[in-house]
């Protein structure tokens, strides 16, 4: 069952432009010039219930604008949005009871209150009874392991602890969809990993649909089964994570330490990424040249050390961004 349905969604921003210098500033007062920027350009996609979907793209691609339209913050210029059968533009408040949002760069907790008081506050604003809120806090604090710091003012928590509390605050009202906008930004690798585990656990336990944006490829690789890539306001790829990796399986990276230099200039499908003395890092397009040919060319007796790997997901996505 699809919980999010987007059809031909478009959003344009009017941005004020100013000519150079003092005269430009004066003329901008009397004759302002506006430039239209299409932040989201005719995108369509659907999200199934219980899915963890990565919605990614470079800075300024239109990710956050899309999330803001899906959550009713921004009004689209055209197109249709349906989130859990609700039109976010017309019934924003009704939708608010059904979804949760965590913006990694924007805290929603009250800094001077303890995490517990914050959760009580969120329970009240979502019209949950005191008894139900208490029960929910107990349940979530166990799941997210908050017991040790639940009674400490949020301003005194570490960033990792705070993000955990932010996620719990957005789950108090049992949302059916959780929008996570860069939830692991600024966190160290250990905390990132624990947040990812918690997101997975939450998705499994409550079947919460998760709509995730992140620049951290590990977040996407470890959490999502489906990836939607947006660039310049357009969807450039919408595929499963396994397909994404599979399509790029024909590209390999070889890191090799050689006794003597090898000349690859006449070989097709080889791209030298780095060369330093007798160390080499090359990318091979196996559609054009197979690995055996390359290894023969290098000559096994000439090899001191070798490592063959798939190209990192980060690189795959960067390539898609560049193509987009």
């Amino acid at each position, binding site marked *: 069952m699809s919980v999010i349905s987007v059809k031909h969604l478009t959003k344009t*921003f009017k941005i004020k432009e100013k000519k150079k210098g003092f005269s430009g500033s004066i003329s901008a007062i009397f004759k302002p010039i506006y430039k239209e920027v299409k932040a989201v350009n005719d995108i369509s996609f659907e999200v199934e219930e219980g899915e963890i979907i990565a919605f990614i793209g470079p800075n300024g691609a239109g990710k956050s604008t899309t999330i803001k339209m899906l959550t009713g*913050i921004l009004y689209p210029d055209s197109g249709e949005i349906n989130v859990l059968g609700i039109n976010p533009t017309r019934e924003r408040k009704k939708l608010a009871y059904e979804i949760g949002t965590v913006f990694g760069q924007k805290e929603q907790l*009250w800094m001077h*209150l303890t995490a517990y*008081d914050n959760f009580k506050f969120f329970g009240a604003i979502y019209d949950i009874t005191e008894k139900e809120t208490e029960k929910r806090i107990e349940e979530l604090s166990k799941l997210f392991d908050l017991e040790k710091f639940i009674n400490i003012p949020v301003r005194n928590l570490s960033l990792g602890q705070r993000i955990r509390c932010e996620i719990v605050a957005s789950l108090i009202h049992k949302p059916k969809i959780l929008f996570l906008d860069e939830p692991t930004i600024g966190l160290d690798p250990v905390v990132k990993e624990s947040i990812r585990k918690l997101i997975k656990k939450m998705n499994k336990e409550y079947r919460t649909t998760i709509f995730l944006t992140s620049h951290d490829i590990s977040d996407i690789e470890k959490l999502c089964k489906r990836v939607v890539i947006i660039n310049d306001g357009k969807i450039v790829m919408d595929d499963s994570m396994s397909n994404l990796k599979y399509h790029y399986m024909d590209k390999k990276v070889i890191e090799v330490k050689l006794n003597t230099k090898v000349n690859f200039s006449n070989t097709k499908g080889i791209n030298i990424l780095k060369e330093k003395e007798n160390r080499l890092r090359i990318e091979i397009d196996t559609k054009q040249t197979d690995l055996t040919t390359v290894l023969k060319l290098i000559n096994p007796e000439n090899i001191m050390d070798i490592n063959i790997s798939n190209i990192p997901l980060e690189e795959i996505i960067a390539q898609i961004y560049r193509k987009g």
Partner: protein
Amino acid sequence: MRKYIYIYKSELMSTFQYVINILFRLINFILFIFIFMNLWNYIYDNPNELINGYSKTQMIWYVIITEIIWGAIEGRKYCRKIVDDVRGGNIAYMINKPYSYIGYAVSGHLGETTIRIIISMVVGFTMGIIFLKSFPALTAPAVIIVFISGILAVLINLLLITFIGLISFIIEDSNPIFWLYSKMILVLGVLFPIEYFPGILAKIMRYSPIYVTCYGPAKLFVDFSYMSSAEILLSQIIYLGIAWGMCYLIYKKGVKKLNVTGG
């Protein structure tokens, strides 16, 4: 309503961390009252003399009450917060919560200023009693009416400031409009009652926010009558509705043209 009480309570709880700061900021309030006590002492030759219908004691109590209502709500700070919310895009993150932004802002700021209002009342009344050695003769129902009128005055004031802050949806920065508004309230409302102004101006002022936000409750405190309290309370209720409607309309219009990019 429960959610707004919770917002009020949460902000109130946060303010407990800053009681010392609030006490320091009261120095301004004490100085203000002290200066006007001396000014009116100087103006009134005879303590029983009436100027525009007010005795010296009544005039000083008038200034104490208006200053409690106007000064303690910290309008400039509140307006700046709303302007920042609109200009900085913070408002976008509150839109998708199940509460009204206007209700959130007003109840939150009320929570933030409650302690200051209470302390100002204690200090203002103490100063009045010590220096004037008198307190207006108010019956219990009159005290309740004055109190209600005071609360309505604070609410109307906060809504009008909310409206001014929300003008930032249209003109980028509405802080200068608040500056004009605050100076108008200070000169025409806090310092002198309406009766001090010439005929036409006084008539206009009776329909202005000054009547419901400053003059009304202070007048009832120094010269209570059931007739004038009915008139003032009715005007305040009408103004409350108008101010809420103005905020609602500008907010609704503003949110549609919200321009928040990011990511």
